[in-house]
C-alpha cells in the first residue's frame, strides 16, 4: 500500500512528471478505456487528482507535499511517513556517513526532504575462473516506510549499475537519467584496476545513486529499491523477471524504425532544447579538455618546482655569507610547491569530476531527445497510416490499379475496415497521450536538470577560483615573510660586522 500511496502522492504532487510512468504502463497493459485518468484513477476512488497534463509545472515535490498535508484524508494514508511532518532537512552537500545525515536535524523554511542516504565504498576484487571483477559496498539508510528496514548493505558490481540504468531508461524514456562513469578506460591505462581509476569510479557511482535518490520520480522506482536492498542472488533472480530478451529486441527494432523515419515536426520548445543540447555538449566537452589540460600542466609545473628548492640548498653549501638567505629562498619555494600540490588536488576533486559528469550528461540528453522523437514518430506514423487508410477506403470504392500494400495493412486488413480504423484511432489516442506525457515529463525534468546544472557548474568553478585564491594567498604570505626577514637582517648584520 505504501508503494501505491507513494506513487499517488508523487503522481498527484508531481503531476505530469510521473504520469509518464503510469500513463505508459496503462497504454501497454490495457486498451480498455480511452484516455487514462490521473494517477489516482483505478487505484483509489477518483477524488480528483489534478487532470493529467494540465499544468506540467516544475514545482518541487516538497511544496506540493506541504499543500497536501493540509488534506486530512491524505494524512491518514501517510501515517507511516510521519517523517514527512518532521520536516527533517539536511545539508545539500554529499554526506559522508548515512547515519550522521539522518541524525542531523535542521529546520528551514523550505526543508530539503531527504530520507534516503546512500554511500558507495570498499571496492573489492573478486576472482573467478572466468573473470575478475570489482564489487562495491552500497550502504543505504532510510526512514521510508516502504523499505523493510532502515539500513541496508549490499555488494554490487558495475554490471548491476548498468542494469539499473537500463531499467530506469526503459521505465522513463524521457526522463534525464543520471550518467554512469565510463565502462572502459579512456586513455590507455594498462592496469584495468588501477587505484585512481577505481576511486574515480567509486565516487561517480555514489553520485549516480544519490542523483537518483534525489530525483522526485526516479527515487520511487521499484528496480532502484531492489538494487539498493536485495541480496546478490535476489537481484539475479529479479533481473530475470523483466521483459525478455526478445521483447527488448522488438523494442529496439521499432525504435530504429521510428528513428529512421525522422521527426516530422518537433515542437518549437523541443527544437530550442535540442539546439541548446547540441551547443552545450560542444562547450562542455571543450571545457572538460581544457580542465584536464590545466591539471596536466599544473602537475608538470609541480614536478619541476620540486627540484627548484633543493638547488638553492646546494648553493648555500658554497656561500658562507648567503647561507641564510639561500636556505630561506629554498624553504619558500618548497612551501609554494606544496601549495601548488594542494591546488592540483582541489582541481581534481572539485572541478574535474563535475565537468566530466556533465560531459556524460550531454550524451544522455541527446539520447533523451532521440527517445522523445521516437515516441512522437510512432504517433506520427500511425496518424499517417490512418490518414492513408481513410484515403484508401475512399479510393477502394472506385476501381483501382494494383498497388503495393503495406504489409501490416495487409495482415490487419480484414473484412471490416471500419474495425481496423477504429482500432487505429484508439491506438492513436493512446499514443497521443503517451507523447503528451513524455513531453511533459521531459519538460519538467529539463527545467530541473538545468537548474541543477547551473548550480553544479557555478559551485564547481567557484570552488576552483577559491582554490586558486587560496594558493596565491599562501605563496604571498610565504614570500612576504621572507622579505621581512631579509630586510630586518641587515640591521643585525651591520651591528655584528662592526668590530
Amino acid at each position: 500500500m505504501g508503494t501505491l500511496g507513494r506513487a499517488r502522492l508523487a503522481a498527484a504532487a508531481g503531476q505530469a512528471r510521473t504520469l509518464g510512468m503510469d500513463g505508459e504502463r496503462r497504454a501497454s497493459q490495457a486498451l480498455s478505456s480511452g484516455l487514462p485518468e490521473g494517477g489516482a484513477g483505478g487505484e483509489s476512488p477518483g477524488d480528483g487528482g489534478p487532470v493529467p497534463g494540465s499544468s506540467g509545472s516544475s514545482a518541487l515535490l516538497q511544496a506540493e507535499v506541504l499543500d497536501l498535508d493540509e488534506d486530512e484524508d491524505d494524512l491518514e494514508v501517510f501515517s507511516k511517513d510521519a517523517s514527512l511532518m518532521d520536516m527533517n532537512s539536511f545539508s545539500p552537500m554529499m554526506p559522508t556517513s548515512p547515519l550522521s545525515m539522518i541524525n542531523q536535524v535542521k529546520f528551514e523554511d523550505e526543508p530539503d526532504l531527504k530520507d534516503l542516504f546512500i554511500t558507495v565504498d570498499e571496492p573489492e576484487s573478486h576472482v573467478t575462473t572466468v573473470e575478475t571483477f570489482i564489487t562495491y559496498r552500497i550502504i543505504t539508510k532510510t526512514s521510508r516506510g516502504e523499505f523493510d528496514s532502515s539500513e541496508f548493505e549490499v555488494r554490487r558490481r558495475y554490471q548491476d549499475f548498468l542494469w539499473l540504468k537500463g531499467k530506469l531508461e526503459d521505465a522513463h524514456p524521457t526522463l534525464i537519467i543520471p550518467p554512469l562513469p565510463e565502462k572502459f578506460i579512456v586513455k590507455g591505462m594498462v592496469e584495468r584496476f588501477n587505484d585512481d581509476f577505481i576511486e574515480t569510479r567509486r565516487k561517480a557511482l555514489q553520485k549516480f545513486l544519490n542523483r537518483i535518490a534525489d530525483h522526485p520520480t526516479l527515487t520511487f522506482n521499484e528496480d532502484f529499491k531492489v538494487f539498493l536492498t536485495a541480496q546478490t542472488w535476489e537481484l539475479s533472480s529479479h533481473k530475470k523477471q523483466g521483459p525478455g530478451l526478445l521483447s527488448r529486441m522488438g523494442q529496439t527494432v521499432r525504435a530504429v524504425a521510428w528513428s529512421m523515419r525522422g521527426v516530422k515536426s518537433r515542437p518549437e520548445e523541443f527544437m530550442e532544447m535540442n539546439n541548446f543540447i547540441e551547443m552545450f555538449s560542444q562547450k562542455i566537452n571543450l571545457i572538460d579538455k581544457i580542465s584536464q589540460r590545466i591539471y596536466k600542466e599544473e602537475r608538470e609545473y609541480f614536478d619541476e618546482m620540486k627540484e627548484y628548492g633543493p638547488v638553492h640548498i646546494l648553493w648555500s653549501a658554497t656561500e658562507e655569507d648567503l647561507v641564510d638567505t639561500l636556505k630561506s629562498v629554498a624553504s619558500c619555494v618548497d612551501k609554494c610547491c606544496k601549495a601548488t600540490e594542494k591546488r592540483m588536488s582541489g582541481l581534481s576533486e572539485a572541478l574535474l569530476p563535475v565537468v566530466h559528469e556533465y560531459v556524460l550528461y550531454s550524451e544522455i540528453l541527446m539520447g533523451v531527445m532521440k527517445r522523445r522523437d521516437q515516441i512522437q514518430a510512432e504517433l506520427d506514423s500511425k496518424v499517417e497510416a490512418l490518414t492513408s487508410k481513410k484515403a484508401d477506403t475512399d479510393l477502394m470504392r472506385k476501381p483501382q490499379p494494383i498497388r503495393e500494400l503495406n504489409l501490416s495493412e495487409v495482415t490487419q486488413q480484414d473484412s471490416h475496415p471500419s474495425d481496423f480504423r477504429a482500432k487505429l484511432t484508439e491506438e492513436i489516442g493512446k499514443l497521443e497521450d503517451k507523447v503528451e506525457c513524455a513531453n511533459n515529463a521531459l519538460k519538467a525534468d529539463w527545467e530541473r536538470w538545468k537548474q541543477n546544472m547551473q548550480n553544479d557548474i557555478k559551485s564547481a568553478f567557484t570552488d576552483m577560483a577559491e582554490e586558486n585564491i587560496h594558493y596565491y594567498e599562501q605563496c604571498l604570505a610565504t614570500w612576504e615573510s621572507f622579505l621581512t626577514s631579509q630586510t630586518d637582517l641587515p640591521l643585525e648584520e651591520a651591528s655584528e660586522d662592526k668590530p
Partner: protein
Amino acid sequence: MEQAPPDPERRLQPAPLEPLGHPDAGLEAVVGEEVEAARDEGSGDGTMTENNFWLKKIEISVSEAEKRTGRNAMNMQETYTAYLIETRSVEHIDGQSVLTDSLWRRYSEFELLRNYLLVYYPHVVVPPLPEKRAEFVWHKLSADNMDPDFVERRRIGLENFLLRVASHPILCRDKIFYLFLTQEGNWKETVNETGFQLKADSRLKALNATFRVKNPDKRFTELKHYSDELQSVISHLLRVRARVADRLYGVYKVHGNYGRVFSEWSAIEKEMGDGLQSAGHHMDVYASSIDDILEDEEHYADQLKEYLFYAEALRAVCRKHELMQYDLEMAAQDLASKKQQCEELATGTVRTFSLKGMTTKLFGQETPEQREARIKVLEEQINEGEQQLKSKNLEGREFVKNAWADIERFKEQKNRDLKEALISYAVMQISMCKKGIQVWTNAKECFSKM
C-alpha cells in the same frame, strides 16, 4: 688602491673627466627609459682624482641598439647590431647632465676591450660581458641574436659591463677604456697598437694544460674550487628555472582557452550568460599576465648569469697566478741547478751528470783557464738569475696582494648583488601572487553571480 705595474701609456692621463674610484664609488646609470633597481652600483659620487679641478659625476648609458649591415673582413655582407654609448658629465652643483660623448660600438668591440683588460690587469676580476648567444632559454625566447628581446637584454648587459668597469677602482683609470667611451674611429687600431695580443700568455688559452706547481697557494686553490662550484650551481639553477618558467607559462596560457569557450557558451545561457562572459574575460587577463611576469624573471636570470660568467673571471685570475707560480718555480729550479754546476766546477767534483762531464771524459780534461771562464759565465748567469728571481718573487707577491684585495672587493660585491637579486626575486613573486589573487577574486565573483 694599488696600481698595476707602472706603464705610462696605460695609465690614464689626468683628464677632466677622470673618475677616481674607491670601493664604494659608483657611477650613476641612466638606463635608457627603464630604471633597473637591481643594477644600482652604489650611490656614491665619483670624486675627482688628485688631478681634477672640479667634482664631476659621470653617467654612462647604452641607450640604443640598431641593426646595421656592412661588409666584414672577408668582404661579405653581414648584419650586426650596433649600440649607442652615451657619456654624460654632471655638474655637481645644479645636477644638470651634459652629453659629452656619444658613439656606436658593436659587441665585438666590447669583446676586444675586455680581452685587453684581461691581459693588462691579470690580478683583477674583470667584469664579464653578457652572453654571446642566448642560453638557458625556455621555449618562448628564441636563441636568435637578432630577436628584439635578446637585443634589449644584451643592451642592458653591455651597459652593466661598462658601469662595472667604470666603478672599478683600478680599471676605471685605464686609457683604452676612456678612449672606448670617447674615440669612435681608430679605437681598434689604438688597442691593437698596445700589442696586448702578443703580451697575452698563450698558455692561458690552453685550458686543459695543467701546470704542476709544487707549492700551490692554498687560498688560490680554494678560490678555484669555489669558482668551479659557483659555475656549476648557477648553471643548474638557471636550467631548472628555465624549465619551471616553461611550465608556468603553460599553466597560465591554457586558462586562456576558458575565455573563448565561456564566451561562446554564454550565448546560449539566459541566467548564467553574464557571469560566464565576464568570468571568461578574467581568464583572458590571467592568461596574458604571464608574459610580463616572465619578462621580469628574465632580468633576474640575467643577474644570475652575470655571476655565472664572473666565476670564469675568478678562475682566470687563479690561472694567471698558477702560471706565475709555475714560472717562478721554474726559474728557481734553473737557478739552483746553475749554482750546483758552478760549485761542481769550482770544487772539481762531478756529482751530477753533466754534458761537460761526459765530454771531459771523452775528450780529455779542460784547461784551468777554460774552467775559470766557464765559472765566470755561470756566476754571471747566477747573478742575473738571482736578480730575476728576486723581481719575480716581488712581482708574485705584488700580484697576490693585489689580486687578493680585488677578490675581497669582488666577494663583497657578489654578496651584496646576489642578496639583492634574491630579494628582487621575492618581490617579483609577491607581485605575481597579488595579481593572481586579484584576477581569481574577480573571477570568483563572476562565477558566484552565475
